[in-house]
């Protein structure tokens, strides 16, 4: 059941973004920025966490979930450290995802060469 929920919720989020892309012709870079920022806002007003509790990876794997994690990190560090927390929570919470992307990408750049697109 948890897998079905993840599939459907994750799929719906992606399908909605696809509609947005088709209608607005927004470039992928802008879409990603929009998703993360929206995730922060949805997290802050308390709408996103319930979705994560319901759908698991279906809500946490999309970039909206990344924004939600950023918000959670900020909130926890404000609770714990006060005002200075707004300067540390963000990087703290996205550290794993960003570090993994940077480190693996760097390794990939040592191994793989640029290749031609077929399609």
């Amino acid at each position, binding site marked *: 059941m948890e897998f079905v929920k993840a599939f459907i919720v994750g799929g719906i989020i992606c399908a909605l973004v696809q509609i947005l892309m088709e209608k607005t012709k927004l470039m992928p870079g802008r879409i990603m920025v929009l998703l993360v920022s929206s995730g922060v806002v949805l997290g802050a007003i308390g709408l996103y966490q319930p979705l994560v509790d319901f759908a698991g990876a279906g809500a946490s794997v*999309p970039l909206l979930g990344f924004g939600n994690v950023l918000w959670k990190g900020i909130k926890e560090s404000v609770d714990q450290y006060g005002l200075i927390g707004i300067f540390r929570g*963000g990087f703290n919470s996205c550290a794993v995802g960003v570090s993994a*992307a940077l480190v693996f990408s760097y390794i990939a750049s040592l191994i793989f060469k640029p290749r031609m697109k077929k399609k």
Partner: protein
Amino acid sequence: MANEAKRNKQYNDYVEKVTPKNNCPLNCAKAFITGGAICTVGQIISAILKNTGMEKDEVALWVTVSLVFASIVLTGFNIYPLITTWGGAGSLVPITGFANSVAAPAIEYRTEGEVFGKGCKIFTIAGPVILYGIVVSWAAGLIYFILTRI
């Protein structure tokens, strides 16, 4: 000048009309399947890790690391772009799309050197995501601080 603006507007409207559109329902279905599948993979990894007795927060982090890793390997073999060509938003929206956007310039710009090639260009697509993620969450944190402490 006014005439030109009018002509341009008419022309753009006309262009909009004659330019063929993507098949939106079909592309949405593809995005649904692709995105759903990637999230399900995340859920499966999560279930496996939970079985080992790992704590919930740590599980979520390992799911992220695994998906990022898988995406970057697929990017290296030039498979990830093919998935996006088919699945559109379905592979752009998940964290794997973010990873692809980091790995792609790293590989493409290796020919321009370690610092100004890979070093600068690795953030060309992902940089804005990190910047706005941090700025927006900072602002949200500030509001939260004001509302709760003052």
